[in-house]
């Protein structure tokens, strides 16, 4: 199978880094299909439209956040703050609504605050030369803390319907949140694979020194990816608050792990320079399938956490094995 694949990549690839992407994405699709078949055969409740739509809805939050995370990871960085930023931006949007701000403005507040928090990480990573891992870990704690501070630890609730529809409404049979997610994926996919900025993201992740010497604006590129990641976490916060018709400072704990797992399962390398939005979309759906399957099969929630961790471990293991092979 692989020989047939590797001999044809000449035909494919639009972007600057693409050569063998087809192979990676095919593997993920095979995994996706296998899991679906297994669940379809063993669990009658799986293949119902209600269940499938609920997978889409449940995947939308991870999906939106994973898009931002993909940009960051392709540059060779990481953003651990996204879960906390979802919670913080959610409560800020909620507070804005409770202060009788119009819905569009509240949405902008959520996304804008997310972008600001991404901007803070960007500043620390580029100007202060700090490690993204540590900076985003600090922001993870700070954003969570702020979410508790501004709410006094209370849940904020009862939002206008127009706001709740963003996260929980339907357009025809489809959840609005899932449609928003697909749109985000589509736009991000085009940006990453077909724009100069996308090419710069790959170049910075592929070899930062070489990119800089070749005249790529490395710091600008890094700054933009963290702002994108923060802004999308803000959008995630809005979607989540809408879906629940409430915003809690304790929301989305551990979401960053799911998002990073989705990106890595989707074929991106934590070493940078490799990854695609299609891969991440498939990774998000695989995680959605696994979570859904574990629920349908009544697996204890404690095991769910463990299995998610094991999946992440497996994905990272494959990544570092690939990396090793590439080096030798």
């Amino acid at each position, binding site marked *: 199978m692989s020989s047939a694949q590797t001999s044809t990549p000449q035909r494919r690839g639009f972007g600057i880094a693409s050569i063998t992407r087809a192979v990676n994405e095919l593997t993920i699709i095979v995994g996706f299909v296998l899991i679906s078949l297994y669940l379809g055969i063993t669990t009658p409740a799986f293949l119902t439209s209600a269940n499938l739509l609920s997978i889409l809805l449940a995947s939308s939050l991870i999906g939106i956040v994973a898009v931002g995370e993909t940009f960051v990871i392709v540059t060779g960085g990481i953003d651990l703050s996204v879960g906390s930023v979802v919670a913080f931006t959610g409560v800020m949007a909620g507070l804005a609504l409770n202060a009788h701000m119009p819905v569009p403005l509240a949405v902008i507040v959520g996304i804008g605050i997310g972008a600001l928090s991404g901007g803070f990480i960007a500043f620390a990573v580029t100007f202060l030369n700090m490690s993204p891992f540590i900076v985003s870990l600090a922001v993870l704690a700070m954003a969570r803390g702020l979410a508790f501070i501004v709410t006094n630890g209370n849940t904020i609730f009862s939002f206008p319907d127009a706001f709740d529809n963003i996260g929980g409404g339907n357009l025809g049979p489809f959840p609005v949140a899932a449609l928003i997610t697909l749109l985000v994926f589509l736009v991000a996919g085009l940006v990453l694979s*077909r724009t*100069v900025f996308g*090419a710069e993201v*790959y170049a910075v992740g592929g070899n930062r020194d*070489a990119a*800089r*010497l070749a005249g790529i604006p490395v710091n600008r590129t890094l700054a933009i990816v963290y702002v994108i990641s923060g802004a999308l976490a803000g959008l995630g916060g809005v979607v989540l608050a809408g879906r629940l018709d409430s915003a809690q400072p304790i929301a989305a704990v551990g979401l960053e792990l799911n998002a990073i797992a989705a990106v890595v399962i989707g074929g991106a390398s934590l070493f940078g320079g490799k990854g695609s939005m299609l891969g991440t979309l498939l990774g998000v759906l695989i995680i959605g399938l696994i979570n859904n399957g574990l629920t349908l099969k009544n697996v204890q929630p404690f095991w769910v956490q463990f299995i998610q961790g094991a999946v992440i471990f497996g994905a990272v293991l494959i990544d570092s094995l690939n990396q090793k092979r590439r080096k030798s």
Partner: protein
Amino acid sequence: MAHLLEMQGISKGFPGVKALSDVSISLDKGEVLGIVGENGAGKSTLMKILAGVFPADSGVLRMAGETFAPHSPRDSLDAGIIVIHQELSLVPDRSVAENIYLGNLPRGAFGRVRRAELNRDAKKLLAQVGLTVPPQRRVRDLGIAQQQLVEIARALSREARVIVLDEPTATLTTTEQRILFATMRTLRASGVGIVFISHHLEEVFEICDRVTVLRDGTVVETRPVGDWTEDGLIQAMVNRPIEALFPERHAALGDVLLEVEGLGSGDSFEDVSFSVRAGEVVGLGGLMGAGRTEVLKTIYGALSRSAGRVRIGSTDARIHNPRDAIRAGLAFVPEDRKGEGLILPFPVRGNVALSTLGRLSWFGSILAPRRIDRLAQQTVGELRIRTPSIRQRVQSLSGGNQQKVVLGRALTTKPRIFLLDEPTRGIDVGAKVEVYRLINQLAEQGGAILVVSSDMIELLGICDRILVMRGGRLAGAVPRREFSQERIMQLAALG
């Protein structure tokens, strides 16, 4: 009586290169053996075999008459052979005493480190190497020479019989060098054998008992130091037949394109002034660590400038980063092709397109794949890059073809000033000749070329003028009619 150390008939090859062939050296107790040679002559390879980093392909090592075949650095350490590299291997945030006994700390019950004993022993060793700092001091707070003495103290803690000092003085001040030499003399008196590798010939004459000259992986000659003269030593190091590799030069010199005045960058170099005219190829020679690469990178905006100015044509250039430099008409080909020149997992087309993405897109933002393909095809054709396809990963190309990809990309920005750092390092002769032709062609088209190379023959063959750097300063400039290897070597090594 058997020698303390004997390396006999050592040969070592790497893919495509014969690094050492039939090299024999010997070292007695209480002797300092100097090993000199140009960059790439095989000194480091020989010492790495001694240190057990990799085995020789053939040949024998003997310690005090007994055959000895190190399979790992551990084996060499256990045999009492300590190699102290130019880059020190100390842990900066631990104490002097801990560094001396690193990996060998005196331990009490439950693995607790016995500090008092540690510091007492360390103090004795420090006294032996003439270092008067408290053993509790953090290594970070010491000067470079003091750190080297700590390394030597560590060597003594392992009961070293042979100590190899690989270019230990390259980063030392004169006072520090005096301290080091005094310690070497004490060690010599106590019966330790020392191998001293240095480019600084006056030091070799001062401290060594015998001197071995390596050239192209073979021993030219070993003589007692009194039987060498400086000129004789230089002659022995560089004397090679000049191959007919270099194209004829016909470029006519035009206006000054690049002018550098009083340039300096941090500690790496200072007060460097020169100019390069259109059509001129200027070489930047000197030993490793003399600051040549840093000069190129500072002009290119990749290192920050701490003094002086750079003029492009007749205007002061405002270059703060490589992007500005490219806009100002500069191109830079880095010495470290894989680390700084290429994005290895990217295909040829991606690497070629990197510097001109704005032109290869619609509205400067949406990639135009056809334009990228066309540019890549054109570059592959013009530079005769041997690759099955423009979608081949550069990783899988040969060194010469990788280098052509880097050169090809540099040309895509239509530069007039070329900064080339070791443009032919590690590539085969055929590719070298092609690079020389390209340089020549660029000069004939009115380009100004500044090229750094450690290969003296190459500099002599392709340049109109050679600037020689030594210790972060320009030591002199040699015009073509005065070209000779001895002259350059003298400037580079003696100042």
